[in-house]
């Protein structure tokens, strides 16, 4: 059965800490892995990864994919209270010319002042 698993499910840190969020997957015909941030409403796109070992970076956030070991990590350095959110990992997979987009359970990150 295809699945996407995130860990930890929740995390509480203080401002300035560095956090690492994990996403592992088992799917057929992998295409890409995506990270999203969800605050009060709709998820917003962070990164899309298709190749192993190539780090994507945006400010204090970075992510990397390991297609051999079937996982990705999302790092957030020098966390701020505004980083408090649900972080969602999704995998795009499937055959022919289209693919399903399946999400993990999400990691709830809480950053205290």
């Amino acid at each position: 059965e295809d699945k996407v698993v995130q860990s930890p499910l929740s995390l509480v840190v203080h401002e300035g800490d560095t956090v690492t969020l994990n996403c592992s997957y088992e799917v057929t015909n992998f295409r890409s892995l995506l990270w999203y941030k969800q605050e009060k409403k709709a998820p917003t796109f962070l990164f899309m990864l298709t190749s192993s070992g190539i780090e994507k970076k945006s400010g204090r956030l970075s992510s990397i994919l390991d297609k051999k070991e079937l996982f990705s990590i999302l790092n957030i350095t020098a966390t701020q209270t505004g980083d408090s959110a649900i972080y969602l990992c999704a995998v795009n997979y499937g055959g022919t010319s289209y693919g399903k987009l399946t999400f993990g359970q999400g990691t709830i990150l809480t950053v205290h002042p």
Partner: protein
Amino acid sequence: DAGITQSPRHKVTETGTPVTLRCHQTENHRYMYWYRQDPGHGLRLIHYSYGVKDTDKGEVSDGYSVSRSKTEDFLLTLESATSSQTSVYFCAISGRPNRTTMNTEAFFGQGTRLTVV
């Protein structure tokens, strides 16, 4: 905002009644998705569409049907609503028309909060 509108934004309905949620896009994206979000479950795929009149089931499709008669609209119908279908429903789109690859990010609507009493 990627040009996605969900309607209604909130709805309360009674058990056993049919309910239809609408997702409308102005971006001409090829792929459209319906998800439900419940605490502890992340986003779970209900149905998705890869073109007009082309749809397929996701992991939690029981009790739901969909239709896509034109590119811009994707309808989700709860045939006979149950309390277990109380949830927040998100529509998403992907596959920009000038891209040849499926590897594009998905954009989300603002969600519909459905309560079945």
